[in-house]
């Protein structure tokens, strides 16, 4: 009876403690590493842009945008995303561009999507940031490109668009920063955004 109880304890531990722990830890990894941005660091820049994914196979927009820094050293920024708008408020000086973006699972679909934008050379979102400021990486629309062959995967283009404009997007970023207590402490970034908006 003791042996049987021990076996049941093992099964219980496996099913209700170990397995959920593994699943939870995988879940946490999905959110990526939290980057903390120093609110007092005045050397940081704000970057933002927009992806219109209406024609993409991944219904429901995108959830993440990964911006790669190439110089002075290799690093990545995980941008915040909201309905196509993406932004980051803690970018250091250097050469950056959007590398990948994608969609996580949905309640109606287990599929994840990753779109490669710039892992094989320079793309239109590239910027060389030499001094702190507000940098617009552009607005783009996903345009599917059919390969024309059953055996070749289809491709896509990110076509530059005029809408939404830099001003519209930056106004949205400012609104989000002012309304969210987590972001409203970034006075330096908010000041730079206001200054840029006056120029537009």
């Amino acid at each position, binding site marked *: 009876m003791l042996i049987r109880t021990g076996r049941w304890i093992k099964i219980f531990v496996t099913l209700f403690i170990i397995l959920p722990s593994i699943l939870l830890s995988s879940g946490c990894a999905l959110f990526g590493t939290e980057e903390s941005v120093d609110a007092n660091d005045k050397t940081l820049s704000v970057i933002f842009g927009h992806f219109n994914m209406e024609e993409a196979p991944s219904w429901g927009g995108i959830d993440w945008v990964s911006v790669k820094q*190439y110089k002075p*050293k*290799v690093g990545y920024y995980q941008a915040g995303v909201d309905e196509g708008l993406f932004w980051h408020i803690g970018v250091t000086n250097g050469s950056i561009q959007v590398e990948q973006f994608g969609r996580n699972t949905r309640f109606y679909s287990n599929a994840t999507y990753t779109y490669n934008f*710039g*892992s*094989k050379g320079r793309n239109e979102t590239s910027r*060389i940031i030499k001094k702190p400021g507000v940098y617009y990486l552009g607005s783009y629309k996903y345009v599917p490109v059919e390969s024309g062959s059953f055996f070749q995967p289809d491709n896509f283009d990110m076509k530059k668009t005029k809408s939404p404009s830099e001003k519209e997007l930056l106004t949205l970023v400012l609104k989000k920063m002012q309304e969210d207590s987590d972001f409203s402490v970034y006075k330096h970034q908010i000041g730079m955004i206001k200054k840029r908006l006056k120029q537009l």
Partner: protein
Amino acid sequence: MSMFTYMNKLLALPLLVVMILMSHGCSMGGQLLKEAESVKDTPKGEVIVVGEIELTPKLAEDEQQLDASGVIDLFGYGDMNKNRCMVQFNEKPEASNYKSMINPELGKIFAFKVPRDMRYIVNGSVLTEFTRHGNTGEILLPAWFKIDIKPTDKAVYIGKIRYTRDDFNSITKVELKDDYKKAKKYFTKKFGKQYKLRKSLIEDI
């Protein structure tokens, strides 16, 4: 059979399948042509191609991430690409899938055994990122060249190809340098004085 033994057996099958798939995945890294060790041992159907490929600015230590997490690199795919490029040869001026590649070290003179009828260089790249999803980052090297190989050739020097890149790893300039003297010195030291290294610089297709 206890629950745990059963689970172990249950896990063994997918693990085996994953291992097999991974080994296939690794072989997709390409069929590599071998480096030449001696002229005498080079088969009649092959010729030793000597040259150099330079990337400028050079790769920094952190620019290649070839240690994919969650992947057991059974075939040393990461090492195969460390500070090296992949260059593809073909009989025709068209790219073929991961066949007949050489992987010379960047900035060093190389000598590879190449089938005599493969006179075209049709593809080139430097792997910068290798993840469990495959090759996710590459520097694409424009390579679209022809080599003149004569039936009597044992070894040919094709030149030094210098690729200049921008901050975002786009190639902005391709230059061909004739560094035959340096190559000849290397060739003589490695293979002996008795063999001829004929200069046959690459030409654009």
